[in-house]
């Protein structure tokens, strides 16, 4: 891990709060999202979906639909003649268009393209599918039982010990030391089981795209996604196209939170376009988003922790069982890695089981796996603190990981900010504020790895000296603002001299998806280095003009300066002056940087929350919420605070009301925002963000990703708060009023 990137400096632009560059477009409704673009001769796509949780497809009769006026293409799996060799690609294809069986309620079985939406809908109704309904399983614990309906046989990996149901496809193990001997040293051991429901990322914009694909294999795709390079690579792989022939452009994006890091329907749009010879627009309804794209996994977890009466954790184990949905994969391994990551433990073991069920393929959701990793652990720590009469912040400080700690998942930490967040929490007025009747205060810590990955940035110095910056990551959390700021900082030019755009897949090299809280870190690093590259070129041009050695030129305040008296007495050359004569000094000036960015720098947070429980109805009200998180360096603090608040808000929903509700028939009952209850504005208190800045050694400005860690602690922080307010330990999410009231009555 490179540690030499960071140097301390005084910032001029970074750390300020300028107006966002995409603001006017967005508030005036001009910004173009996935569904906002049309093409001449365009058709409307629509997808027919299985009404069964699990069914063999014995036949599909599309003749009536094909005969309808205005219907230009009808496709089923039979039209996807390319069979990908890679099993991951084959699974994506099967998920986009079912093969021999429908694996979940909402699984696509056919699609049409027609001249209007209503004709497309009517054509779907005219398609006849002959199903043989099969037994199904939608609960993770049920799916692990011997004799459970098997979603797909033959997918179990070698990591799974013998005797497990075939739905269990993977098992992972982490940790060190000997928990059993650790438990022997404990004064108190608490062992409990927990459950969390599947939750939706809650993005406002449904998936949408516009596709063209000609018979020569050239295609264009406009799509709402977190990663258009990923979309290109997957569509090419699934359809057997050359990636270079498919150009993908990312639209503005109305939220993703991980739900748009996957491909759900783009190959279908491309196939409809190929078959009809026309551009095809495909826009999912909210119902389709819920039924057929991925929520995060539900979980079932056992945790056991031993503690001395002074609060030292002596031994810890956890077993995570996570629902992967209808295909192998899953994120239990991430839960197993993250659960105990905040603590310095001698004896810790975790294991994770990935389990297939008849539900849509589980997708990433903000720090995938980490919230359900932390929730059971932080709940048990809180219970130990209650029973041993210990302060929950002091106890966490006593066990906190710090620089040099060997983490529960393996690596040894460099400089990290967990202690700083705990100390900040301890000294914050929230911690000492009085509580009323039926109120409780909860705290919890959370960890996320953060990520870097493949990144390309191009920085063009235009003839007038302004700067155009191209990056390849859809801007979800304000990255255009942050990149613009970092470029302006490094070049020493005013902010309004730089404009950042998101380039299409033909304009820059490979970029990883906007995920893993990677963009401000990795694209920021590449932006700074691309600026440095351009500066080197501009220094050469100035040196050439002055007739001195490029080494003898300094760059500051947006201009080349002779490095010292020995270099010669020349007035500085500004970026404008250098750009104006670029044609005569060697041609256009541009910097670029391509990197697989390492050293993302792990991130920690501590959350504190007060709730009040209505003892007669079980209703939970969130009264006060404070987030303490290490940002490394907050490039644009407004956005950082927004990330802290957003993660907490989503966590509040996850903890209190959100859940996918499946009926006995295996069908989703609440496929919409009326009965899938994300918090509304009036449900939330002001969420106070407290930014800590412990520089990340792996970034020139010390930046760490901040987007995901903020959703890791809330589940436990709120559960701890509610459990203390209610006087009973709650172990199942969401803590919806019926659950809380039942727990109160069972006391």
């Amino acid at each position, binding site marked *: 891990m490179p540690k030499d990137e960071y140097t301390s400096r005084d910032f001029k632009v970074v750390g300020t709060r300028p107006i966002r560059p995409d603001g006017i477009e967005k508030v005036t409704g001009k910004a173009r999202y996935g569904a906002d673009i049309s093409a001449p001769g365009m058709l409307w796509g629509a997808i027919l979906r299985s009404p069964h949780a699990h069914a063999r497809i014995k036949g599909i009769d599309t003749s009536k639909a094909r005969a309808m006026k205005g219907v230009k293409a009808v496709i089923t799996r039979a039209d996807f003649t390319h069979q990908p060799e890679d099993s991951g690609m084959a699974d994506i294809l099967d998920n986009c268009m079912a093969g021999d069986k429908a694996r979940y309620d909402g699984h696509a079985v056919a699609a049409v393209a027609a001249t209007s939406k209503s004709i497309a*809908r009517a054509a779907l109704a005219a398609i006849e599918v002959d199903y043989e309904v099969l037994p199904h399983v939608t609960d993770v614990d049920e799916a692990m039982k011997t004799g459970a309906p098997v979603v797909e046989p033959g997918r179990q990996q070698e990591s799974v010990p013998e005797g497990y149901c075939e739905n269990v496809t993977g098992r992972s193990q982490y940790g060190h030391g000997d928990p059993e001997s650790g438990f022997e040293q404990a004064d108190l051991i608490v062992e409990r089981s927990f459950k969390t429901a599947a939750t939706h990322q809650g993005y406002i914009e449904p998936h949408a795209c516009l596709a063209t694909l000609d018979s020569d294999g050239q295609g264009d795709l406009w799509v709402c996604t977190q990663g258009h390079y990923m979309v290109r690579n997957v569509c090419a792989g699934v359809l057997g196209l050359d990636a270079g022939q498919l150009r993908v452009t990312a639209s503005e994006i109305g939220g993703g939170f991980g739900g748009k890091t996957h491909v759900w329907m783009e190959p279908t749009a491309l196939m409809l376009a190929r078959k009809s010879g026309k551009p095809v627009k495909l826009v999912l309804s909210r*119902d389709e988003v819920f039924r057929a794209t991925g929520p995060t996994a539900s979980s079932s977890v056992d945790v056991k922790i031993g503690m001395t009466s002074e609060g030292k954790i002596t031994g810890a184990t956890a077993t995570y069982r996570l629902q992967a949905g209808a295909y192998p994969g899953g994120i239990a391994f991430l839960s197993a890695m993250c659960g105990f990551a905040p603590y310095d433990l001698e004896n810790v073991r975790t294991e994770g089981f990935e389990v297939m069920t008849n539900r849509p393929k589980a997708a990433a959701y903000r720090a995938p796996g980490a919230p359900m990793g932390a929730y059971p652990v932080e709940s048990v720590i809180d219970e130990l603190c209650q029973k041993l009469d210990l302060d929950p912040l002091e106890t966490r400080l006593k066990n906190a990981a710090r620089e040099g700690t060997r983490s529960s998942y393996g690596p040894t930490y460099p400089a990290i900010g967990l202690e700083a967040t705990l100390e900040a929490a301890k000294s914050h007025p929230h911690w000492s504020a009085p509580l009323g009747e039926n109120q409780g205060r909860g705290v919890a810590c959370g960890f996320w790895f953060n990520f870097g990955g493949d990144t390309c940035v191009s920085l063009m110095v235009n003839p007038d000296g302004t700067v155009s910056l191209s990056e390849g990551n859809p801007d979800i959390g304000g990255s255009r603002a942050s990149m613009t700021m970092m470029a302006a900082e490094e070049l020493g030019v005013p902010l309004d001299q730089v404009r950042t755009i998101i380039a299409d897949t033909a304009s820059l090299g490979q970029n990883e998806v906007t995920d893993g809280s990677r963009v401000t870190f990795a694209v920021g690093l590449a932006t700074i280095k691309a600026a440095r590259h351009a500066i080197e070129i501009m220094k050469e041009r100035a040196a050439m003009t002055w007739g001195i050695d490029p080494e003898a030129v300094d760059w500051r305040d947006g201009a080349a300066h002779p490095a010292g008296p020995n270099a010669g007495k020349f007035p500085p050359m500004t970026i404008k002056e250098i750009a104006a004569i670029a044609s005569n000094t060697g041609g256009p000036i541009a910097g670029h940087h391509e990197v697989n960015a390492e050293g993302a720098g792990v991130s920690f947070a501590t959350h504190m929350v007060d709730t009040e429980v209505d003892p*007669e*109805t*079980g*209703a939970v009200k969130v009264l006060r919420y404070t987030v303490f998180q290490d940002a490394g360096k907050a490039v644009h603090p407004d956005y950082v605070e927004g990330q802290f608040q957003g993660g907490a808000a989503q966590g509040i929903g996850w903890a*209190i*009301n959100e859940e996918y*509700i499946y009926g006995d028939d295996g069908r989703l*009952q*609440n496929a919409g925002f*009326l*009965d899938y*209850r994300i*918090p*509304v504005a*009036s*449900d939330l208190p002001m969420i106070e963000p407290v930014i800590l800045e412990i520089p990340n050694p792996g970034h020139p400005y010390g930046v760490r990703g901040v987007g995901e860690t903020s959703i890791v602690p809330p589940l436990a922080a709120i559960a701890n708060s509610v459990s203390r307010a209610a006087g009973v330990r709650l172990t199942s999410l969401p803590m*919806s*009023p*019926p659950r809380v*009231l*039942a727990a109160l*009555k069972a006391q």
Partner: protein
Amino acid sequence: MRFETPTSVDQAVALLAADPEARVLAGGTDLLVRLRAGQIAPSAIIDIKRIREMTVISQEDGGWRIGAAVPSAEMNEHAALKADWPGVVESADLIGSTQIQGRATLAGNLCNASPAADSVPAMMAARATARIAGPDGTRDVAVEGIPTGVGKTSLEKGELVTSIFLPAKPAHSGDAYLRFIPRTEMDIAVVGCGISLTLDDQGKISDARVALGAVAPTVILSQSCADTLIGTAGDDAALDALAAAASAEAKPIDDKRGTIAFRKDVVGVLAKRAAKIAITRAGGKTGGET
């Protein structure tokens, strides 16, 4: 699909009588949602908002006649109506959000015939009646006579509701409506309870109406609940008896919005809390010993 904008009740009745597949459109906050979701495909939509008499709130016999096209936002701005029937106005004020209330009507809430409709228990408690116009003329029906099941009403072919009438409020009376939702707004009642009551000169409850929402296929107008209050001063024992009676009357289902046990418990809690508000509004005191 045709879109009709009659300007008189007679025209509306004629259009409805001529086409059994036609639907009345008031605020459209239920109708348009169902249309877009593909749940209904009417042959014609009859918009009643151009019928002048259906868009006004007027005083009549000491009570209030509320046109079937009046949005709940207007009721909320009507000080005199609000002073007489705060429970009814508040129930309509709970519907959806500010935007929804710019459109949503009492009559639409009633004719949509959802057991969870917020204004219906409050209207029932207030002894509201619906005026119905049809090919055979006009009739007045108690609000509880309109919904007959989930999504079903007693309206005959060609009939529509033209107004809701809230009678003159008796002296020393008060009403209240409370609902339980897991969020603070934009939700559907898991349980609701509307109560209207009148006190005698001694401060004892002489008349009471209790309606329970979302705990049966239609809103329950409960005599046994009312009986626990009548003759008492709304003391703790009476309120406990009311809660028990409400829980006993409720015949809820388990569904995505709540469990049977939860609904039975919470309907009692809400009945108690609503009764306290109604008693206070009637000028009485609550919480005392018998």
